[in-house]
């Protein structure tokens, strides 16, 4: 008898203890979460995920591992099919995002959830509109926005329309918006994917301040150095399951990436010295003025030759987007000249340019890169659907297209059950793989790659970077724009630095460039002489 009651007490003791831990240590605990999407895809399989109060917890894993899904479940956007969520020690039922926000859980999404036609201020206060007697006070909204942006040192034009903002700024609005809601737990789903290194540093400072004030942060990122720099603990997801949790300080970057991908990933790329040939693209005194009269692109001259990778480094928003859009003919009214094989593109259509084997990875995946509602197949064939090889008589050759698409899905390792699913069912990184698959598989002679590995896991990034080098070796000219300095230095043969719409440096040998050096040019602290800059024009 005695032993039985002893056991009984022991059990109670354990239960109390574990409950205490929940109350004191873990602000949040998700237990046995299984999430099945309506197409039958199991995105989370019995996931256990615990976060301590006041920590910055990294959630990492390959593209499609189920990170965003798990966070959407926590934020009440998706309902789990089984499992429980405890918040501040209490079992909760988070039926929708409003409940989550009310409880103090806020999320910044991987893809923007802003209303493009409204201004920044209007978006900021959506759902918590200021004003008296049911009237909306726009002035108040602008003031709130300016206050919070000052407080967190994330400057923004409160009266700009969202659709006129570059991606980096849209992300900033998202972050500010959630800070304005006054939450305890912040979920940040790849917030830095679209930020510049400087902005990221700034954000990290703020996050650390928030942490000291007792906020809890869940941070998703594919960038290992960020995790090392910012996070306390990490949880790794793979194929919808948790494969490990650890203290970040116990691991090296190499070990973290191995935990994520299950194999060694090479963060540096082996490549031979470039053998540049004829000039493919040359840009001469190119300028472009935006609708506010600002000279966003200012008198650029450079050229890219076949067989070389020219990297463009620069803080985002210094004219890179406009430059690549001008070359891809998505933007009109250029001043100056853009020559493709010596011929001006000013009068050419996008189709004509693409026919000359130019491919373009846009930095804005959701606007230009994909059709959200269309299938993966439809997204892949958009630049080639009309070609003879894919048409038979008057109809498209379904069988040929199917084989072609399935091959690409395999080659680029897009994680999906079928090519016929809408692309919106893919994880962010896998969507990017679809874009890359399309743009790399058209046998390009000039690749304009703007943030090609944004949101892509380390394993797949390695693949894409290698592929860029392979394309170069096959004789393509590559123009690589990236906010990831490590990527620019690793992949490029030579580097151009842009600042305020102008080229401020040309560094012929990327191998000998350091991040610090780039930083000085990027921030406009240093500038090369006109003589030095003239060397980037090769004809």
């Amino acid at each position: 008898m005695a032993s039985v009651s002893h056991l009984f007490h022991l059990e109670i003791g354990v239960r109390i203890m574990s409950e205490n831990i929940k109350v004191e240590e873990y602000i949040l605990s998700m237990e046995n979460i299984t999430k099945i999407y309506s197409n039958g895809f199991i995105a989370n399989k019995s996931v256990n995920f615990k976060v301590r109060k006041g920590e910055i917890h990294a959630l990492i894993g390959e593209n499609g591992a189920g990170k965003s899904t798990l966070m959407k479940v926590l934020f009440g956007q998706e309902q789990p099919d089984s499992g429980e969520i405890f918040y501040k020690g209490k079992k909760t039922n988070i039926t929708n995002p409003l409940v989550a926000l009310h409880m103090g859980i806020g999320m910044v999404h991987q893809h923007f959830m802003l209303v493009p036609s409204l201004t920044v201020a209007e978006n900021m206060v959506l759902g918590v509109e200021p004003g008296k007697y049911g009237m909306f006070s726009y002035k108040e909204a602008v003031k709130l926005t300016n206050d919070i942006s000052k407080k967190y040192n994330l400057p923004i034009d409160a009266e700009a329309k969202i659709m006129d903002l570059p991606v980096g700024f849209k992300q900033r609005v998202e972050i500010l918006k959630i800070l304005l809601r006054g939450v305890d737990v912040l979920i940040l789903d790849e917030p830095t994917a679209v930020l510049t290194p400087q902005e990221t540093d700034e954000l990290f400072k703020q996050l650390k301040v928030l942490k000291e004030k007792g906020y809890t942060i869940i941070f998703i990122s594919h960038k290992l150095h960020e995790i090392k720099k910012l996070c306390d603990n990490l949880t790794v997801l793979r194929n919808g399951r948790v494969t490990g949790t650890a203290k970040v300080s116990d691991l090296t970057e190499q070990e973290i990436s191995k935990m994520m991908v299950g194999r060694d990933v090479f963060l540096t790329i082996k490549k031979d010295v470039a053998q540049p040939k004829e000039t493919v693209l040359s840009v001469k005194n190119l300028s472009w003025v935006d609708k506010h009269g600002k000279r966003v692109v200012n008198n650029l001259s450079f050229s890219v030759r076949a067989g070389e990778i020219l990297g463009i480094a620069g803080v985002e928003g210094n004219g890179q987007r406009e430059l690549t859009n001008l070359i891809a003919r998505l933007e009109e009214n250029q001043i100056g000249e853009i020559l493709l094989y010596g011929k001006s593109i000013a009068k050419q259509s996008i189709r004509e340019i693409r026919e000359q084997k130019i491919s373009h990875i846009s930095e804005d995946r959701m606007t230009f890169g994909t059709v959200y509602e269309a299938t993966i197949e439809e997204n892949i064939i958009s630049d080639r659907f009309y070609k003879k090889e894919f048409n038979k008589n008057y109809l498209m050759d379904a069988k040929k297209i199917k084989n072609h698409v399935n091959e690409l899905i395999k080659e680029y390792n897009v994680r999906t059950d079928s090519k016929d699913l809408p692309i919106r069912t893919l994880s962010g990184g896998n969507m990017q793989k679809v874009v890359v698959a399309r743009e790399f598989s058209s046998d390009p002679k000039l690749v304009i790659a703007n943030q090609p590995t944004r949101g892509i896991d380390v394993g797949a990034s390695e693949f894409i970077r290698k592929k860029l080098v392979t394309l170069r070796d096959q004789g393509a000219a590559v123009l690589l724009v990236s906010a990831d300095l490590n990527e620019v230095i690793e992949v490029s043969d030579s580097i151009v630095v842009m600042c305020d719409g102008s080229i401020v440096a040309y560094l012929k040998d990327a191998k000998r460039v350091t991040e610090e050096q780039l930083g000085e040019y990027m921030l406009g602290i240093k500038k090369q002489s006109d003589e030095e800059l003239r060397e980037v024009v090769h004809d």
Partner: protein
Amino acid sequence: MINKIENQFKFIRIAISISIALLLAFLIISFVSKDPLFAMYNLIIGPFENIRRVGNIVELMIPLLFTGVGVSIMYSAGQINMASEGAFFLGGVAAAYVSVTFLLPYGIHPVVAMIAGGLIGGLIGLIPAILFVKFKALPVVSSLMLNYISYFLGMYVIHYIIFDPETGYLSSFLYKETAILPKLFSVTRIHWGLVIGLIVVVLGYLFLKKSKWGYAIRMIGMNPNFAQYSGINVGFYILLCQLIGGAIAGIGGAVEQLGMYSRFQYQKLSGHGFDGVLVAILANYNPKFVPLAAFFIAYVRVGADVMARNSDVPIEIVSIIQAVIIVFVASERFLAGWKHRKIVKASQERFASEEA
């Protein structure tokens, strides 16, 4: 497995929507009618009671095939273009003009009339698209305005060019016999327009869902920025599909005249173009499903007509039924929970068997 559930689900959702609509109709009928059961019987079974009424359904359905396919194509490019109404009307007027004034042999005459209808219909569909592509004028507004213009233009032709003063009301001269579309079966008034309509359905389906042009149009409809980025000539395809959609509606107007009438006698816009929007929504802008949707709308109309004639329930009840069904069919989330549970179960089973 999952696909099977999806298909099952689609079918069940439509079946349930229709049942709910009928139930609602029954409730309303119970209020207004002394003998609701009899009225209901007329509404549901009435249309199938004799061959003539079945014929009526098919006759009503024929023009909807054309406008349904036309609107499906127009809307697929993301253009809310209502000009199908004006296109149908003027298509009929053009056919009337050709049928009254031209002297042509059998076989050729209706073809020329339909071509005339198609041309004018295409033009009408094209105008809002041009205004959109050139001046960014919203097609939903310009096309509604254009429908008035089409109407008065058509009435002008009837009134001043082919007006028959003998009839005592506003109508054209009799169509020449050579222009008339022959009947398919002797008992009903079903005419060759059915065959032409079904051909249009097949061609429309192949065009929109299987051809490169259709692909371009659908991509533009879903994301014009993406289409432009990929090298698709957005403006051109918008013009093209509004032209084609309008032309199909115009041919429909011609076929309706030549198949069902012996002289032009519409006094106002016929509403077939707007019904086309209804049909296209029900068919999810897929020409493949247009016959089914058109048949259904026609069936409900004939049912309401039979009911109004035989019982004390007014014909307007049909609008309510239509509205309810469209609301349910168009709402994605309706019954989605049920579908989700089924799929979850199937996946869990698959998951379990994979684990084992």
